[in-house]
C-alpha cells in the first residue's frame, strides 16, 4: 500500500542534497474528530440528565476518524504534494503536522514550528486589510518593528490595492479571491522551517499564482520542506517532486509526482 522505497528514491535524485535531514516524521498518526450533532437523537432533558448521572456518552456525539495510521518521513528541501478526493483527510493531516490538531494515537515529530497557511485562516472580517496584516504577523510571532517594515511589502505582494485603496477597507468588503490572496501573503511573509499550504495557490488570478509559486520556491530553497494540498493537479505537478495520495485517511501511494498523479487520475476517472 505504501511504497516507501519509491519515496526515498525521489529525494536521492535531488542533487542539491548531500545528507538527508528529516524535517517531519509522522509515525502511525491517527486523528479523530468528535462532533456534537446538536438536537439529533433522544435529546430530551430527562435523557440528558440520565446520561449525566450514569456517565454514559451522549448519543449525539459522532466520532469521525479522519486520519488512520499515516506514516512517512519528509526531508529538508522537499516539496510534497498531498492529493486525494474530498474528505480523504488531507487538510486534517496538515493540521496535525502543524500541531494544531492533537493526534489520538501515534506521533508527529517536526523540526521547528511548522506553519500552516490555509485559505480558511480566520481573520477579523470587520477590520481593514492592513490591520489584519498586522494582527496576522504578530500572531506569527513577529515583533512590532518587523511588522511595520513588512506591511507595505505584504500589501504589495497581495495585490489588493490594484483596484484602489482596499487595504484600508474592512475585509468583509473583499472578494473571496482578494481575501485569500491577502492571507497567503501574510503567511508567506515569514521564513518557515516547514511550510504547509492548503489550497492557497489555487486562488487568485494568473499573475498572483505566478508570484506565489515563485515565492513558494524561494521559501523552499531557504527554509526546508513545503507541503501542498491541492485539487489542482497542475499546481502539484509544477511545484512538487514527491506526492502522497491519501484516501479515507490512509496513504494509498507515496512516490514521485508523475507516477502518483497518473495512478490518481486513473482512479478518479475510473469511478
Amino acid at each position, binding site marked *: 500500500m*505504501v511504497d*516507501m*522505497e519509491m519515496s*526515498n528514491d525521489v529525494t536521492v535524485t535531488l542533487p542539491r542534497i548531500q545528507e*538527508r*535531514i*528529516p*524535517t*517531519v*516524521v*509522522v*509515525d*502511525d498518526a491517527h486523528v479523530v*474528530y*468528535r*462532533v*456534537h450533532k446538536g438536537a439529533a437523537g433522544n435529546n430530551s432533558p430527562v435523557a440528558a440528565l440520565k446520561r449525566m448521572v450514569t456517565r454514559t456518552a451522549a448519543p449525539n456525539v459522532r466520532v469521525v476518524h479522519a486520519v488512520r*495510521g499515516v*506514516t*512517512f*518521513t519528509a526531508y529538508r528541501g522537499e516539496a510534497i504534494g498531498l492529493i486525494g478526493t474530498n474528505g480523504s483527510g488531507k487538510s486534517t493531516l496538515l*493540521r*496535525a*503536522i*502543524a*500541531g*494544531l*490538531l*492533537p493526534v489520538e494515537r*501515534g*506521533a*508527529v*515529530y*517536526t*523540526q521547528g*514550528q*511548522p*506553519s*500552516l497557511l*490555509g485559505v*480558511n*485562516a*480566520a481573520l*477579523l472580517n*470587520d*477590520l481593514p486589510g492592513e*490591520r489584519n496584516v*498586522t*494582527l*496576522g504577523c*504578530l*500572531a*506569527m*510571532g513577529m*515583533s*512590532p518593528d518587523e511588522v511595520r517594515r513588512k506591511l507595505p511589502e505584504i500589501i504589495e505582494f497581495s495585490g489588493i490595492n490594484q483596484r484602489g485603496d482596499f487595504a484600508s477597507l*474592512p475585509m468583509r468588503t473583499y472578494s473571496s479571491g482578494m481575501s485569500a490572496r491577502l492571507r497567503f501573503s501574510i503567511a508567506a511573509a515569514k521564513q518557515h522551517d516547514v511550510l504547509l499550504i492548503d489550497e492557497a495557490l489555487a486562488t487568485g488570478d494568473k499573475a498572483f499564482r505566478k508570484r506565489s509559486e515563485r515565492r513558494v520556491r524561494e521559501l523552499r530553497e531557504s527554509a526546508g520542506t513545503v507541503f501542498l494540498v491541492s485539487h489542482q493537479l497542475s499546481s502539484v505537478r509544477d511545484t512538487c517532486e514527491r506526492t502522497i495520495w491519501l484516501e479515507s485517511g490512509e496513504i494509498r501511494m507515496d512516490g514521485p509526482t508523475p507516477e502518483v498523479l497518473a495512478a490518481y487520475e486513473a482512479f478518479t476517472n475510473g469511478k
Partner: protein
Amino acid sequence: MANLLADPDSGLTPAQLAARHGLRVAGERPSISRYSGQLWRYRHFISAYAHAKLTASFSNARLGQLWQVLTPLTNAAVYYLIFGLVLEQTRGMDNFIAYLTTGLFIFNFTQVSVQQGTQAISGNLGLIRALHFPRACLPLAITATQFQQLLGALVVLLAIVVATGEPITLTWLLLVPAVLLQTIFNAGLTMMVARLGAKATDLKQVMPFVLRAWMYGSGVLYSVNLFAENLPGWATAVVQYNPMLVYIELARSSLLEDPHLLNDSMPLTWLVALGWAAVAGLGGYLYFWRGEQEYGRG
C-alpha cells in the same frame, strides 16, 4: 504500520530517527516557564488583538466607540429606574445612585469577562487551527478588552459620583489598586472558564444563570445590610468573602462618603481581595496551561 522503518538506510524507527535529528513532537505543551516566556513575547499580539476586537465590536454601529460610554450609562439608568424608584431600595442611603452604579460597573467588568471567556477558545477555533501562538493570549485579550471598556465606564462613574454630591478626595486613588487586583482576578477566572468552555460547550447556556446568582449575592442592586439582616450568620460570613462583594466594597469605600459596607475591617477586606487575585490569577493560569495542547480539537 507502526513498525515500518522510517529510513531504511539507517535502520531506525520513526521515533529514533526523530530523536536523532532533534525533532520535537508537534503541538507539545511547553513547560510553564517557557510558556510564560512565549506569552511575554506575544504581548503585542494580545494588545493588538484586544484593540482589534474592541474596534470590530463597534464597527457596525453608527455611534461607534461612543457605545463604550453609552452602554454602562443606559445600564445604570435601567437599574436605577427599577431598584431605586420602583422598588425603593434606597432606604437609609444618602446616595443610592452612586452606590448602585459603582457596584454595577465593577460587577459588569467581571461578568462580561467571564461570559466572553467561556467562548474564548470555542469562538476562535478558526484562529486556533490556523496559527500558532500561546492560547492564553485569547482569554487575556478578552480581559484586556474588558479592562478598556471598564476605563470608559469609570469615567462615567466618576462623573455620576461627583454629580450626586460626593466630594473628590485622596481615597479615590485607592480605586486604582482595587481595580488592578480585580483585573488579575478576572484574568484568572477568564482563563479558567475558557478551558472549561472549550470542552463543555453547554457552559455558555449555564453561565448567565450562574452570573445572575452571583450578582444577587454580591450586593450590587440593594443594600448589603439586607444580607446581615436576613441571612443566618454563617451565610453572611460566606457572602463577606465573596470576591465580587469584596471588590465592589473596595471601590465603594474609595469613592463614597457613606459606602454602607458589609465588611467593617478595611485591612482585612484588602487582604481578602489580594488573596482572591492571587488564587484565581495563578490557579487560572496553571489550569489553562495544563490544557494547552487540547485546544482546537473537535
